[in-house]
C-alpha cells in the first residue's frame, strides 16, 4: 500500500500529533539498566521481558505492522503512517522493537512469497513479540561465504533431519523460530543449487544453543547445534534447491530495502548531534574541548562525512548523476555507513577525556557507558552481513570491474 497521494496532508499531520501524544504518555521510565542499542544486545531475561512488553504495547496501540494485512495482525494502512510513527519514535529515542529478524526480514519474506498457511501461522506472533525469530545463515567456518554452508537437511518421510551448526544466532536462546539455510543436495553441480530454506521451529529435539559472550562482556548471540534434529517437512519454504535465491532476497531486506518491513525502531542510532552533546561540557588542556582547534577540525571532518551519507540518499535517485559508475552509491551504502559510525564512535571516546576509561555499570560513566559499548558493538555491523573487506571486494569487482582474487 503506497497510495500516498490519496491521503490528506491534514490527516497525516493529525496522525503525527497523535503519535507524539502517545509517546509522551507511554514512553517507559528508566528501567535502571542500560537498554540495548540494537537487537543484538539482548543478553538477559530481564532485558528481554522489558522489550517484549514494550513491543507488545507499540503493536497493540496500533503503531507496528501498520501496513501489514489486517487478517494477520497488521493495520492494513498505507505505509506512510508507519513511516511517520517510526520517525517520531526515533526522535523520542524510545526503546527498540526488538524482534527485528521477524519484523524486518522473515515477515516481509513471508508476506511477499509465503503460503497462506505460513502467513496464518507466523505473522501475528512476529508483531506481538510472542514469537521471537532468529536467523541461521552463518556457520562457524563460513562467515561471509554463504555459498559454502555445510549444515545438512535430509528428507525422511514427512520430516527433514538437520545436522550441523550455525553461529552468530541473535537471540538464538530465546527464539521460537529460525530462518534456516541448509544443504539438501550435496551433489548439486553448482553449490548454490543444493541449498534450501526453512522456517524452522527452535524447540525441536536435537536443537541446542550455547550463548556467546561478546567483546562488550554482554550476551546476545548463540552458537546453535543441530544433532539429528527432526522438523516437519512443511517447514521448507518454496522448493528444495531454491534456498540460495530466497536467502538473497532475505539479505535484501537485511541490507536496507525497507519495503514490506513491519516498521518499529530497530536501532537507537547516534548522529553527530549526540557526539556534540557529550563534548559540550568536557575540558581539554584547561579549556572547553569545543575550543580546541584539533578537535574542531576532527569534528568537522565527521560532519562532512555524515552529511555526505545523508546527501547520497538523494543523489542516488538521479540516474544522470550516477551514470559513470552505476550502483556505486547503492552498493557502498553499508560500507560507508558502518565504517563511519565505527570511527565516529571510536572518536567519541576521546571526547570524554579521562572518563573514557569508565564502562557500563560505573555510576560516573558518560551516559551510562553507552558510547564505550556502542563503539565495540559497532563491529557487528562492519563484520556482520558481509565484512567491510568483503564489501570492498564486491564494490571493486561489481562497480569498478576489478578482477577477483
Amino acid at each position, binding site marked *: 500500500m503506497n497510495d500516498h497521494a490519496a491521503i490528506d496532508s491534514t490527516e497525516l499531520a493529525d496522525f503525527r500529533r497523535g503519535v507524539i501524544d502517545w509517546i509522551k504518555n507511554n514512553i517507559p521510565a528508566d528501567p535502571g539498566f542500560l537498554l540495548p542499542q540494537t537487537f543484538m544486545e539482548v543478553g538477559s531475561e530481564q532485558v528481554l521481558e522489558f522489550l517484549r512488553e514494550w513491543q507488545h504495547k507499540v503493536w497493540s496501540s496500533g503503531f507496528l505492522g501498520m501496513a501489514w494485512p489486517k487478517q494477520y495482525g497488521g493495520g492494513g494502512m498505507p505505509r506512510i503512517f508507519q513511516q511517520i510513527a517510526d520517525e517520531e519514535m526515533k526522535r523520542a529515542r524510545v526503546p527498540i522493537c526488538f524482534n527485528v529478524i521477524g519484523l524486518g526480514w522473515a515477515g516481509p519474506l513471508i508476506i511477499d512469497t509465503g503460503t497462506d498457511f505460513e502467513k496464518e501461522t507466523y505473522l501475528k506472533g512476529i508483531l506481538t513479540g510472542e514469537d521471537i525469530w532468529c536467523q541461521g545463515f552463518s556457520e562457524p567456518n563460513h562467515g561471509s561465504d554463504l555459498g559454502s554452508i555445510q549444515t545438512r537437511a535430509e528428507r525422511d518421510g514427512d520430516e527433514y533431519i538437520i545436522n550441523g551448526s550455525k553461529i552468530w544466532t541473535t537471540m538464538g536462546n530465546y527464539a521460537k523460530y529460525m530462518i534456516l539455510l541448509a544443504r539438501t543436495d550435496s551433489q548439486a553441480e553448482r553449490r548454490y543449487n543444493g541449498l534450501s530454506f526453512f522456517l524452522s521451529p527452535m524447540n525441536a529435539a536435537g536443537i541446542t544453543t550455547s550463548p556467546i559472550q561478546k567483546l562488550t562482556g554482554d550476551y546476545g548471540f548463540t552458537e546453535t547445534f543441530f544433532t539429528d534434529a527432526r522438523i516437519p517437512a512443511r517447514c521448507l519454504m518454496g522448493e528444495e534447491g531454491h534456498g540460495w535465491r530466497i536467502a538473497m532476497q532475505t539479505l535484501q531486506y537485511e541490507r536496507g530495502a525497507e519495503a514490506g518491513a513491519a516498521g518499529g525502531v530497530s536501532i537507537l542510532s547516534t548522529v553527530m*548531534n549526540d557526539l556534540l552533546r557529550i563534548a559540550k561540557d568536557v575540558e581539554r588542556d584547561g579549556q572547553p574541548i569545543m575550543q580546541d582547534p584539533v578537535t574542531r577540525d576532527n*569534528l568537522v571532518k565527521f560532519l562532512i*562525512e555524515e552529511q*555526505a551519507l545523508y546527501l547520497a540518499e538523494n543523489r542516488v535517485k538521479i540516474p544522470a548523476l550516477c551514470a559513470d*559508475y552505476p550502483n*556505486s552509491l547503492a552498493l557502498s551504502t553499508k560500507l560507508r555507513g558502518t565504517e563511519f559510525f565505527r570511527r565516529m564512535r571510536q572518536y567519541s571516546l576521546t571526547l570524554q577525556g579521562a572518563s573514557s576509561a569508565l564502562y557500563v555499570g560505573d555510576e560516573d560513566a558518560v551516559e551510562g557507558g553507552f558510547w564505550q559499548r556502542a563503539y565495540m558493538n559497532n563491529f557487528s555491523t562492519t563484520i556482520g552481513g558481509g565484512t567491510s573487506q568483503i564489501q570492498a*571486494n564486491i564494490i571493486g569487482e561489481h562497480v569498478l570491474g576489478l578482477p*577477483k582474487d
Partner: protein
Amino acid sequence: MTRTANLSIAFSEEQAMILDSAKAFCRDNSDTSAVRALLKSETGFNPEVWSQMVALGWTGIALPEQYGGSEMGIGATIPLVESMGRHMLSTPFISSTITAQAIIRGGSVAQQAKWLPGMAEGSIGTMALLDNEDWGATGTSCTLTANGDSFELHGKKLLVNDAAVADFFLVLANHDGALKLVIVEATQLGADAIKHKTLVDETKRAANVDFSGVSVSAEALLVNGAKVLPDVRLIGALLIAAEATGCAAAALDTVVDYLTTRKQFGRLIGSYQSLKHPTVEILIQMDSARTFIYHAATLIDDGPLDNDSEIACRMAKAQAAEALSFAGDRAVQFHGGMGFTYDCDAMLYIRRAQWSQHQYGDPQHHRKLLAGLLLD
C-alpha cells in the same frame, strides 16, 4: 545545528542534456594526447576549442538573457566544469565564470551592460585577489588612491589565473580602509606588468601581475564588489571543487584501467586486495565529492548565498580537494615504476591535485570556517 537544513539535490532534464553534451565534447576534444600537446604551449589552451565552447553557449550559460546568456544559473556550469576536470580540458572558463559572477552579483546595470555581453561571446576576465600565499586573507595591501576624478592602483597580485590571456582583471584593492573590486583592462597594464609563473600543474597558467600606476575611472569600481566578494569566493571554491571531482574520476579511470590490464606474479594486479581496496576508497571519496558539488549547485541561485549554500560550497571544496589528493597520490603509486615517469598520466592528476588544493582555500581553511558555522 550540525548540517544544512536543505538536503536536496535537483537535476533537471535540461541539466542532464548539458552534462551529456559536455561529456561528449570534452572527451572528443581533450584526450590525453591533446592535453599533453598543450603542456608546453604558451597559453595552455587550444583557441579553436575555446571558440567552440563559446559557440555552444557555455560562456553565457550563467549570464542573464538580456546580455546574451541563457540564464540557467551558476549551478548549470557544474556539469560543464566537472566534465572539463574529467578530461583535463583547461581553458579560461573557470576564471571567466567566476569573474562574470562577480559582475552579475556586484556590478551596476551599466557595468553589467558594459562587460557581460562580451563575456558571453568569449572575452576573458579573471580575478586578481592574492597579495601573498594566503587564500584566507580578508584584506589586501594593494591600494586604490583618489587622484582628481580618477583613481590610481598601487600593488602586485600573485598567481592571477590566465593573466596572460585575460581581457580584463577584477583587482581586489583597499580604498581608505574599504575593499573594492576594480576592473582593469589588459591594455592598461605596463609592458612588464605580467610575470609568468612556473606551475606544478602544466595544464594551468598563472602570473604575478603588477597593477602599480594603473589609473581607472569611478566606473571601474564594482559598485557592490566588497559586499559580494565572500559569495564570489565561495562560488570559486565550488567551481574548483567540480573540476577536482572530475579529475579524481579521471584518476580513478586510469587506475582501474591499469589494474585490469597489468599482470605481476601471473595475476592481474587488480586482484590484489592491497590495491583493490584503496581503489574502492578513491571511488567512495570521489562519489562523496560529486554528491556535494551537485548539492551546492542545487542550493545556489542568483541571490546572496545563504547559510546552507555556504556550508555546501565549503564542504564541496574540502571534500573534492581531499579526494583528488588521495586519488592522484595513489594513481602514481599503483602504476609502480611507470607511475614514476612523465609518460604516465598519473603525473597529470597528482600535479592537478596540488594546484586544486589551495585554489580558493584549502580543506583546512574551509573546515575551520565550517567549524564556526556548525559547532558554535
